[in-house]
């Protein structure tokens, strides 16, 4: 069993690696423990900065990005191991500690893990890290043999001298290789020579997730540790006016009651249950601030005003939309809308912190180790160099754990209990009501068809909240949040052949904090665009696939995926009685996706999705098996949200406090999913998020095919169809 090493050496190896290169049969001999990572000793040699090789050939690949279920840890290890020519069954992983990355001036690059960038923006340097290590190992063997390195070849962690047939294992030359200079000119393999990249190897982090031994951040145990429960002002922007600690001081286990910033109070106790129980009894008076009267109705009206308000931020335009609409043979218009949505990660927000004078140590599940480190330092005004971050695997992230509010809170609490580690855990209710929600938006679309039924004008006006204005205003582009137009700018929109096009937005920022939610703005934008394109196809009297093909002539990669998925789904072929199809496509996060849904609607009007056939072209697929799992997972996440997901606002606060009112997808809600990885090569696209955008429009378009009714607002539960 692996324990979180508290007195770690240079790195924290909490990424439990599991031998997995070999195909497992349906029955596994022995115990899970046999597959669990064996504690790696100290004897390893650092060959370059990315690889540590032990005398027994155990090869530890360092991972800078975070693992939240998306499989990046395994994918990155594959990239390094392939260029290293390592024996995959010997590969383990460990996280780079953020403070090491800081001390070495970001030698391991960007630690942030979001935007489906974990792999695609580090492919070059991690592969070079593996290749450089291989060159060093080969050079060390050549030196030992006194032969030119060019006469030696490496494969499966063994170096062979071609002419003499002599062999040395990596473990035998690692110590010597570690002393060599890291080469600067590092050629990478031609994709045709990849052995591990592109293979559906098993994840390296599975076994310990099956027997309860994996230590998530919420499971951290430290000597003398206290636990904290926190209450934040229910109204966003409100503050704590006062609290009466005396009332709960005598309750079992209570250690202290501490203010946390302007808007929260925490109870610190021996156990979290004691802390939570006491917090529930703590009299707190809130200053709810100026937003305490905001409700769904006021928000809806405010957002709607952005549909025809004058200050529209421009996304892109070509041609003359207004003239083309005026001159169109037929015009179609529709308004769509989607609600706020919480991430609701399985593991609620939590962080353990210990503050000792001007030094701080945290144990945290974060999507960005660097940011967590900086946030801890800034929260209590200490030097970043004085912060140590123990990264754990995440009980999911979906963008929520790219924020650091919970890290700052834990550190501020721990500072008030000096010298003692304090584990702060949010209750699910706090987690539900203090998120960074998927933005609320509405969209008005106008389309113009010519006499032949071809789309000649398209105007999409978004109205609603900007994520960047809320969380990263400095990243706006001359006051415009380009991210709001995800899927619709020239580099992502599949319909650039439409001659007259305008994409704009009436920004309407509410007081509800918004953030990056798996798939981000593609989620709702794809619903708006793909359902409206379907409306236009219907108005033109054309098949939705044919209609799209005609306006995708400038976007061959989008079109190729759409065509492939249509073919795999049997588009146009007969279906069983009562079953209908819908189709859609979307480009985002560097990948191209399409889906076909097959649905039926029963006599009571209830929707049933029988099957979704989907495809992604992510260029190179590092691990097609894991890509397929990401596609399935994204559909469960996306469909659940579209069926039930909705955060409502009353008296300035979020109403839904738990999974009883914020319903998400469960087993019975998820249809059969056929996930096709259509990797065409030549580029690296993201895989964790892009497919989520295509599940809902496909289903909604199929619902129309079945009923002739358009559902233009989500969630579907409000229409009584699920």
């Amino acid at each position: 069993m692996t324990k979180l090493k508290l007195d770690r050496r240079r790195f924290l190896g909490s990424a439990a690696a599991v031998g997995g290169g070999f195909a497992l049969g349906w029955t596994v001999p022995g115990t899970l423990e046999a597959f669990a990572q064996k504690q790696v000793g100290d004897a390893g040699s650092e060959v370059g900065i990315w690889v540590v090789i032990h005398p027994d050939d155990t090869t530890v690949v360092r991972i800078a990005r975070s693992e939240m279920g998306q499989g990046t840890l395994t994918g990155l290890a594959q990239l390094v191991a392939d260029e290293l020519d390592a024996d995959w069954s010997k590969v383990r992983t460990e996280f780079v500690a953020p403070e090491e990355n800081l001390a070495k001036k970001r030698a391991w690059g960007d630690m942030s893990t979001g935007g489906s960038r974990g792999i695609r923006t580090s492919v070059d340097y991690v592969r070079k890290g593996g290749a450089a290590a291989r060159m060093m190992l080969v050079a060390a063997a050549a030196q030992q043999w006194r032969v030119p390195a060019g006469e030696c070849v490496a494969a499966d962690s063994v170096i062979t001298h071609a002419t003499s047939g002599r062999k040395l294992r990596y473990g035998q030359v690692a110590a010597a290789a570690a002393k060599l200079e890291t080469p600067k000119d590092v050629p990478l393999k031609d994709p045709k020579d990849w052995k591990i990249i592109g293979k559906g190897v098993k994840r390296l982090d599975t076994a310990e997730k099956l027997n309860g031994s994996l230590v998530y951040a919420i499971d951290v145990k430290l000597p003398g540790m206290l636990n904290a429960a926190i209450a934040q002002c229910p109204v966003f922007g409100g503050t704590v006016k006062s609290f009466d600690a005396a009332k709960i001081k005598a309750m079992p286990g209570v250690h202290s009651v501490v203010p946390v910033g302007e808007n929260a109070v925490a109870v610190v106790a021996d156990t979290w249950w004691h802390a939570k129980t006491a917090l529930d009894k703590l009299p707190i008076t809130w200053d709810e601030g100026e937003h305490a009267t905001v409700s769904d109705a006021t928000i809806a009206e405010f957002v709607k005003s952005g549909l025809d308000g004058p200050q529209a931020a421009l996304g892109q335009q070509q041609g003359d939309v207004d003239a083309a609409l005026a001159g169109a043979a037929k015009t179609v218009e529709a308004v769509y809308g989607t609600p706020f949505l919480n991430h609701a990660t399985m593991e609620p927000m939590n962080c353990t912190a210990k503050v000792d004078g001007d030094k701080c140590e945290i144990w945290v599940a974060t999507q960005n180790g660097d940011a967590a480190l900086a946030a801890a330092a800034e929260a209590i005004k200490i030097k970043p160099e004085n912060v140590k971050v123990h990264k754990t695997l995440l009980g999911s992230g979906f963008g929520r754990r790219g924020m650091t509010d919970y890290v700052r809170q834990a550190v501020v609490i721990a500072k008030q209990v000096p010298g003692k580690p304090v584990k702060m855990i949010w209750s699910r209710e706090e987690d539900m009501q203090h998120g960074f929600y998927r933005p609320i938006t509405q969209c008005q679309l106008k389309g113009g068809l010519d006499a032949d039924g071809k789309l000649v004008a398209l105007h999409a006006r978004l109205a609603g909240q900007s994520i960047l204005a809320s969380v990263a205003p400095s990243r706006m582009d001359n006051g415009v949040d380009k991210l709001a137009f995800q899927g619709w700018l020239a580099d992502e929109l599949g319909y650039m052949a439409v001659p007259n096009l305008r994409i704009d937005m009436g920004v309407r920022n509410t007081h509800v904090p918004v953030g990056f939610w798996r798939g981000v703005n593609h989620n709702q934008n794809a619903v708006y665009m793909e359902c409206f394109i379907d409306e236009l196809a219907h108005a033109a009297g054309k098949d939705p696939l044919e209609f799209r093909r005609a306006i995708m002539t400038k976007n061959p990669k989008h079109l190729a995926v759409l065509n492939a998925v249509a073919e795999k789904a049997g588009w146009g072929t007969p279906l069983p009685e009562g079953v209908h199809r819908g189709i859609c496509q979307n480009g985002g996060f560097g990948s191209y996706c399409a889906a076909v849904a097959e649905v039926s609607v029963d006599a009571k009007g209830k929707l049933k999705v029988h099957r979704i056939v989907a495809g992604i072209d992510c260029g190179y697929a590092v691990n097609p098996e894991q890509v397929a799992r990401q596609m399935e997972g994204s559909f469960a996440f996306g469909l659940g949200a579209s069926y039930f997901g909705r955060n409502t606002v009353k008296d300035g606060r979020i109403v839904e406090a738990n999974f009883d009112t914020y319903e998400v997808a469960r087993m019975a809600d998820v249809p059969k999913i056929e996930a096709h990885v259509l990797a065409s090569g030549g580029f690296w696209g993201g895989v964790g998020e892009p497919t989520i955008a295509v599940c809902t429009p496909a289903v909604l378009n199929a619902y129309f095919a079945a009923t002739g009714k358009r559902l233009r607002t989500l969630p579907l539960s409000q229409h009584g169809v699920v």
Partner: protein
Amino acid sequence: MSEVVSRVGVPRKAKQGEIIEIRTVITHPMESGQRINEVGERVPRKIINRFVCSYNGVEVFAADWFPAITANPYLTFYTVVTESGTITFAWVDDDGTVYTASAPIEVT
């Protein structure tokens, strides 16, 4: 605009020739001109663009500031103590308003 408050840190007494540290801070939003408001309109730039410190009327230190200076701009610098008197501080807003403060200093 809400009340603007400044705070300056100057030793009350110092020896002649001593180099003293001066700290200043003023409450000001330093609106960068980059942000948008709740309906997407650009919030116009409004910053303190100039700071001047004078010692008995003689300018001893000054600054030009641009939008990267944070809200409630904070500054520390040094000056040589020459004689007893008054050290004055002036902050110039984009809108032309000048905010001032002063502190006495006694040479011992």
